[in-house]
């Protein structure tokens, strides 16, 4: 019995992850679509270096909370994003690294997910591919700029423009814990910020 339980543990984990993903996806959909007015037009942004970022004054979400939705149509990914990248969060859905900025803010935001589940085929994203992240602050379109593989002791450079990195363990087909990470690097190319009024009304 014990041996069977140990043998099945990883499969049960993946099953739990899939079950929770469905539940959280519904929560995220409700958060970014149903409960809010449509995003207002992006106000003119005078600088041409990057699209208008989310203000840095936005409050940091609490750990474990749904903060948005990640949609990568080319990989059939439509998943809730949780705040936090510890095992309890990553067992359920992609997680936002709390030490990084929120998606759409100035700097590099990081969203991590398991290589065995959500980010299994993330290496298929090529420069020029786009995807969206919807949060309470608005809808953000990111364009893939490249990929990099880092050792866990390496450092990932920050940026002076709104960027987002999708992170997972590497190799992607590893059935064990690895000391390498794959980062798919992207840059914000379009931001549709919700107006301050809409955010405050919520």
């Amino acid at each position, binding site marked *: 019995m*014990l*041996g*069977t*339980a*140990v*043998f*099945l*543990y*990883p499969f049960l*984990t*993946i099953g739990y992850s899939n079950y929770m993903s469905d539940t959280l996806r519904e929560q995220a959909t409700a958060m970014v679509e149903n409960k809010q007015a449509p995003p207002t037009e992006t106000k003119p942004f*005078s*600088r*041409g*270096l*990057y699209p208008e970022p989310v203000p840095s004054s936005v409050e940091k979400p609490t750990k474990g909370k749904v903060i948005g939705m990640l949609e990568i149509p080319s990989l059939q990914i439509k998943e809730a994003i949780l705040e936090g*990248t510890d*095992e309890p969060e*990553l067992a359920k859905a992609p997680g936002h*690294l709390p*030490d*990084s900025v929120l998606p759409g803010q100035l*700097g*590099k935001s*990081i969203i*991590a*997910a*398991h*290589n*065995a*589940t959500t*980010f299994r085929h993330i290496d298929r994203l090529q420069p020029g591919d786009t995807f969206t992240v919807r949060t309470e602050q608005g809808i953000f379109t990111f*364009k893939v*700029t*490249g990929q990099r593989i*880092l*050792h*866990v*002791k*390496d*450092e*990932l*450079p*920050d*940026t*002076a*423009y709104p960027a987002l*990195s999708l*992170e*997972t*363990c590497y190799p992607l087909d*590893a*059935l*064990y*814990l*690895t000391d390498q*990470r794959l*980062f798919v690097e992207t*840059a914000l*190319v379009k931001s549709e910020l919700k107006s301050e009024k809409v955010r405050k009304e919520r």
Partner: protein
Amino acid sequence: MKRVSILSLIAAFVMTMFASFASAAAPDFQKLGFPNVAVEKEIVPGQAASITYGSVRIDVPADAFTAPVKFQVIEGANADFQAKAPANETVLMNFAFKVTDKATNELVAKFNKPVMFFYTDAKITANSKYYDTTVDGQMVVNKVPAKIEGTTLSHPIAGAGVGWAVTSPAAPVKNATSPVAGISAAPWVAGGSVMIIGAAAVWFAARRRTA
């Protein structure tokens, strides 16, 4: 006589090259990676002017131009220049000039006197660098080092033949590689298999002994 002729030829060649460079039209950087107009101002000869936008100030001396010009500061996506920058540097900003003679509608490549560029950013340090961005998209450190005072970088600019980018040493994203985004399936499956096989072996051994 022969030596004089060769020297004359070399001199003529150098003068021709210089003349052709000097008279060359400015490249249109709006089509070369700087599509966005950040600010524009009409500059009248004999009047000094100052152009400001965001964290940038550009001082134009009174005698920089001999005819009225439309002076545009243009920008490109920082992400595009980041891809060309050294891995350990962060591109803070980029820009180019598009200066158009209002009478002839031609781009002005060279200024009579250099304009002064000032950029203020909390990320400017003593190790910040000032790059030329060439028409073929390369980033080359400008031969004249930028002057850095506190968090302000300044540099004289005598023409619009290249674009420019400012970088600072890259700061890392804290704990970027800390998420454990893998599932340790193999040890569990292997351990479970060993336990099942062991249990089966014990069961068979016990059964054989009983029999």
